[in-house]
C-alpha cells in the first residue's frame, strides 16, 4: 500500500507542469510584487530600463495560471482594472499569439518580460520567477 502511495505521489510530481517568468538578459532581478506591478503597468521603468510586459492571449491556460499565481486577480477584476486604466490613459500589456513568439520577443527586446512553460526556455533569456502546478 505504501509503495502504491509513493508511486502515485512520484507520478503526480512528474506530471506537475513547471512555468517561469522570464526576461531579457539585461532585465534586473524582480520580486513577485514587482513582477505584478510590471504586468499592471505600474512599474514601467526600473534600473534605467523600460520594462515591457508581454501577455499570451486571453484564452491561454498559461495566462490564467500566471494571473492567479502572480497577479492574484481573476478575469473580472483585471477587466475592471484595465477599464479604469483606459480612462486614465494607460494600456494593457501587448499580447502575442504563442509562447514561441513571446520567447523570441523577450530574447530580442531589452526589458521585455513574459511567462512560458519551463521546457521552452532558451539560453537567450533569464528566469525571474518559477512556479509549478499545485
Amino acid at each position, binding site marked *: 500500500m505504501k509503495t502504491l502511495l509513493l508511486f502515485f505521489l512520484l507520478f503526480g510530481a512528474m506530471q506537475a507542469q513547471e512555468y517561469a517568468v522570464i526576461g531579457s538578459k539585461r532585465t534586473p532581478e524582480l520580486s513577485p510584487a514587482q513582477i505584478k506591478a510590471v504586468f499592471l503597468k505600474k512599474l514601467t521603468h526600473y534600473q534605467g530600463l523600460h520594462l515591457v510586459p508581454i501577455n499570451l492571449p486571453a484564452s491561454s491556460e498559461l495566462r490564467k495560471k500566471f494571473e492567479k499565481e502572480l497577479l492574484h486577480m*481573476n478575469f473580472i477584476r483585471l477587466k475592471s482594472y484595465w*477599464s479604469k486604466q*483606459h480612462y486614465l490613459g494607460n494600456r494593457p500589456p501587448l499580447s502575442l499569439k504563442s509562447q514561441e513568439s513571446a520567447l523570441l520577443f523577450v530574447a530580442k527586446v531589452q526589458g521585455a518580460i513574459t511567462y512560458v512553460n519551463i521546457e521552452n526556455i532558451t539560453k537567450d533569456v533569464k528566469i525571474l520567477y518559477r512556479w509549478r502546478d499545485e
Partner: protein
Amino acid sequence: MKYLLLILIFLFSLYAQEEYTLGEGYQVGELPMYVGGYFSLDYRKKDEQSRYRLDDIALLSYGGNDTISYLVELEFKEYYVHYNEDNISWSTTDRRLYLERLYFDYVFNDETQIRLGKFNSPIGLWNLVPINVLRETTSNPISTEIIFPQYTTGVNLNYTRFDEGEFRLDLILQNNTPLDDEYNNYDIDKHYALGLNYEINDFTYIFNTGYFAKREDYIGPHDFAYAQLSLGYESEQFELLSEFGLQQSNEGDMNLAAYVQGVYRFTPEHIGILRLESYKDELTGLNDSFAVVGYTYRPLYPIALKSEYQQHNRNSENKFIFSFSVLF
C-alpha cells in the same frame, strides 16, 4: 479650439484598427494613439419630481511613448435634462463642450514623473475615476464634493517606489487660473496639496492634505485647508471602502464628511452595494446622515445598469436613481 479637438478625436476614431475590445478604446492605425469615450443616462425620482438626464457624453484621446504621453478629454455635461413635477414638465439643455482633462506626462527616471495641465486631483479613492460607469453606484459620496477641488490646473509631481507594496507621493501645485473654469466643484486659482498612498496586497491607505483658494472676485470664504484619510480593501468578491475628510475655511466654517461602503459581487455580473454616509457642511448649514442601498448589473464590465435607493435623515432628500452607462 475645443470643437476642433473634438473633430480631430472623431477623425482619429475613423482610422481605428479592426480588433476592438469594449472598454479599452480604439488604436488609431498603427500609431501609439488611442481614442475612447463614455456616456451616461440616468433617472432620478425625488419627492414628487422625476428627472431624466443624458448626462455625460465624452470623448478622450491619449498616447505617447515610454517617456512622454498626453491625454485630452472633452465632454458635454447635462446635455439634455427633462423634469416632471405635479404634471408640469420642462427641459434644459447644455450644448457647451467642456474641457474635462488636458495634460502631458514626462517620466524623469524610474521613480519620478511630472504631469502638466488640467487633471483629476489625485485625492482619495474616487476622484481619479469619477465617471459613472467605473463606480458601483450612480451617486458619489458627498466627501468627493465638499472637501477638496476635483480638478487642478497646474503641476502634479509624482514619486513612486515599489518594494513589497507600492508607495506613491503626489505633490500638486496650482497658482494660475484654471483651464475651463466652469467645470470644477470649486472655482480656484490656487491649490497646493500633498498625497501619500501605500498599497500592499489588497489594501490601500491614502492620506491627503492641502490648501486651495477661490478666485479673487469670489464673495465669501476665500481660503480653505483640508485633510482626508482613505482606506480600501478589495478581494475577488468583496470590497470595503472608507473615507473621512474635513475642510476649514479662513472664516472658521468647517465641513466634515465620512462614509463606509461595502460591495459584494454575487457573480461578476451581479453586484450589491451598501453605503453609510454622514456629513456636516457649515458653509451651507446642511448636515445629514443617510444610507445608500444599490444593485448593479454588468452584462459586460464596461456596461453598467445601476439602481440605488437613498434613505436620508432629511426626508426630503430620499431618492431612487437608475442609470445606464457605457465605456467604449
